[in-house]
């Protein structure tokens, strides 16, 4: 479970996150929806302790990110916005590197890698060096290595960014599978349909503030709009930065 309480983060005079509060529960997919520049990536970066918040609290399974960032990172699987892989290592070696950084033994790394490679359909390129990988192959490698330690909580920053239709569908199936494993899945997106199709809860964020935190159904009712997209536009107060 991931809890965010009154999170503030500014870069100089630019306020990126301005008092965000929400909860992502286990066994649910929570979507962080907002236009470009709304503060989604900054919020997530505070969650996986890449950045320190100016004010507010982040709790992962009850552990405070400010007091024990290493323990928090241990409980998180993270697919950041930056998803570069080491091009002179094979996909499998990329995955094993992160496994070793988590302190896993070689047998566990081998077994989990095999499982992830099967689950993500990576068998035919797992032992190739990642130089020249397609965007989809790179994202799969990045996800496999992010989940090598079998984390209870998974954070994904715009996971379908740059993926083609087939890869996007596969990604959505994969997120559902993570949910059915009982994990807490939190992902950010600016794509309405994706959030609508996947999420149990939608946290709408605009200008660094949480403007709604509801189930898709409740969101429609709250705004009085039958169409989720209209509801979204109404919530953020403009059509700026919105992509279908």
């Amino acid at each position: 479970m991931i809890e965010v309480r009154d999170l503030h983060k500014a870069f100089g005079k630019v306020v990126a996150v301005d008092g965000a509060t929400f909860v992502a529960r286990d066994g649910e997919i929570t979507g962080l929806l907002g236009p470009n520049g709304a503060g989604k990536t900054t919020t997530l970066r505070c969650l996986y302790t890449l950045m320190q918040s100016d004010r507010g609290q982040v709790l992962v399974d009850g552990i405070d990110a400010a007091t024990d960032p290493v323990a928090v990172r241990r409980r998180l699987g993270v697919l950041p916005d930056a998803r570069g892989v080491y091009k002179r290592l094979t996909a499998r070696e990329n995955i094993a590197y992160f496994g070793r950084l988590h302190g896993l033994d070689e047998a566990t790394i081998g077994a989990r890698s095999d499982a992830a490679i099967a689950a993500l359909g990576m068998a035919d390129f797992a032992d190739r060096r990642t130089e020249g990988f397609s965007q989809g192959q790179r994202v799969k490698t990045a996800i496999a290595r992010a989940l090598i330690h079998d984390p209870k909580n998974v954070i994904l920053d715009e996971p379908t960014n740059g993926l083609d239709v087939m890869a996007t569908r596969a990604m959505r199936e994969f997120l559902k599978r993570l949910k059915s494993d009982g994990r807490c899945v939190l992902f950010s997106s600016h794509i309405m349909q994706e959030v609508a199709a996947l999420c149990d809860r939608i946290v709408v964020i605009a200008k660094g503030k949480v403007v709604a935190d509801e189930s898709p159904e409740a969101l429609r009712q709250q705004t009085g709009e039958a169409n989720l997209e209209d509801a979204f536009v109404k919530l953020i107060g403009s059509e700026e930065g919105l992509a279908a």
Partner: protein
Amino acid sequence: MNSALVVFLKEVRENLRDRRTVLNTLFTGPLMAPLLFVLLINTLVTRELDKAEKPLSLPVAGAQYAPNLIDALKQQNVEIKASPDDPERAVREQDEDLVLRIRPDFAKFWDKGEPAQAELIYDSSQREANGQVARLRAMLEHYAERTGALRMLARGLSPTILKPLALAERDQSTAQSRASNLFSMLPYFFILGGFIGGMALAIDTTSGERERQSLEPLLANPVPRWQILGGKLAATTTFAITSVLLSIIAFAAVGQFLPTEKLGITLTIGLRFVTSTVFVMLPLAALLATLQTLVAAFAKSYREAQTYVSLLMFVPVIPTLLLSILPFKTLPWMYAVPLLSQQVIITRLLRGDFVPMHGLALSFVCTAVAVFIAYMATTVIYRSERLAISA
């Protein structure tokens, strides 16, 4: 397994897979520099020796005015040839190294017993010619002295009257110390070896990793940043040290082929030289690797990092230049200054001079302290939020 070790092994493995970089950092750099150095010295020495042994070919203007002088020169193995029309110009344009000009009134003054003028036309900024000028000057002075002595005798005076002072020169330079002037650049070649060895990894593991978007995922792992930095630094240092070792070994091997016996000098490139040099260069290689990482991590982009690291390469030149221009006496405090101490120690070792054990120890410890300070400074940069953000 310790996380820093995991990072170290991964960086080493990844770098070794980059064949071209490995070839350049571990072979071309460290092996080419000493080879080039030895080749250069060899050519220089051989040419100097050739010149000294060969008869001096001397263009003379107005040779007919002083036939006795010319004969005396010929006896000293000087080949007299015709002078170019404009001797000054010929020397300026380096057609000739030097020209001797004798005035038409030479014989008149000579016969009267007054100073007769001969002109030596040369360009002292042409180092090439200096040896020949010195040779010719010595011959002319010798001739003048002999003639002077004869004239004194003819007047019934003792020639020693003109020699109130008998100057005897006792040159205290040893064979090694004469050689060391040629080799004062050598420490820089070793330092350069370490520099080249660490450069690729220092940039690659910091701003390179950030630019390739893999630093942010790496930092999302439950490993403190100082451990990640430690592993990366260890990898960079390993390559820098390997490079330095290869440089030293290559020089020790190739140095045996230097024509030292022709110069009448000896170089001490023995086991003591190699072990002591390696000992003082180890912490320096680590220091260079850490400084490279520091500036590369500080840079905002890969290109910026390359610029900073290249600029950093000029820093080790400073003590080398200072010591080769200014004849510093080795003072105890010099052993405490990183870079300078290595320069002093390696030069002294090569000269066969005594280097005290505490000098070696002081150099090692002080450089190690500098490594620690640079490492702490780098961890500060690594703690900053800005570090991981590539966009």
